[in-house]
């Protein structure tokens, strides 16, 4: 079992990166890899509540975030600096996430086997 960290650095809609990242995360978890997620920069916006992607013709992969626990994906880190930059609070986020400093995220990268950026 490998420890796999998936980083979301891009905004959720308008490109397929975020959806591909989440598909990759769920698929890896189905293959019993130990998957963790990091949200940074505009990628953070993936976690906002009250999104309605279907209204702009995008697939609603945001709802799938609610199933992360069932896929045993329990480690979700969000970048503290990005939270500040975008003026967001933890209760703006739809799933429980650990607000982490850059140093904590760097330490997490050291700890895992592979880091994939979407």
């Amino acid at each position, binding site marked *: 079992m490998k420890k796999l960290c998936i980083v979301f650095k891009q905004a959720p809609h308008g490109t397929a990166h975020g959806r591909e990242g989440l598909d990759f995360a*769920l*698929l890896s978890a*189905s293959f019993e890899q130990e998957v963790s997620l990091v949200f940074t920069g505009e990628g953070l916006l993936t976690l906002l509540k009250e999104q309605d992607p279907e209204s702009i013709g995008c697939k*609603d*992969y945001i709802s*799938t975030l*609610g*199933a992360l626990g*069932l896929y045993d994906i329990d480690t979700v880190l969000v970048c503290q600096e990005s939270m500040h930059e975008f003026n967001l609070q933890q209760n703006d986020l739809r799933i429980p996430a650990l607000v982490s400093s850059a140093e904590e995220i760097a330490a997490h990268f050291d700890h895992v086997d592979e880091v994939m950026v979407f």
Partner: protein
Amino acid sequence: MIEFNGKQIETDHQGYLKSVSDWSPELAPIIAAEEDITLTDAHWEVVNFVREFYLEFKTSPAIRVLVKAIGQKLGEDKGNSKYLYTLFPVGPAKQATKIAGLPKPAKCI
């Protein structure tokens, strides 16, 4: 393509409905018959479960997740692959999602 109540319902080449909204409970036994399954209450419990799962999370559950989620909701005696394979011999995730009118799960045994 399935003919139902005089209407043509589109499917992909594996028999999964192209549109989730084309499904109705009356359609389930017809899809099930294609899979050689006669729906019992036990089947319905799983079919309804995967449909609700899809409507909530917008994704079809793969087998491992299905087992875990059913275990949490319907109890451990049902949240195991042996029980689910008894109901859906070819593959619970594959067949239950098909009968529930959902897209095929991404990683599907």
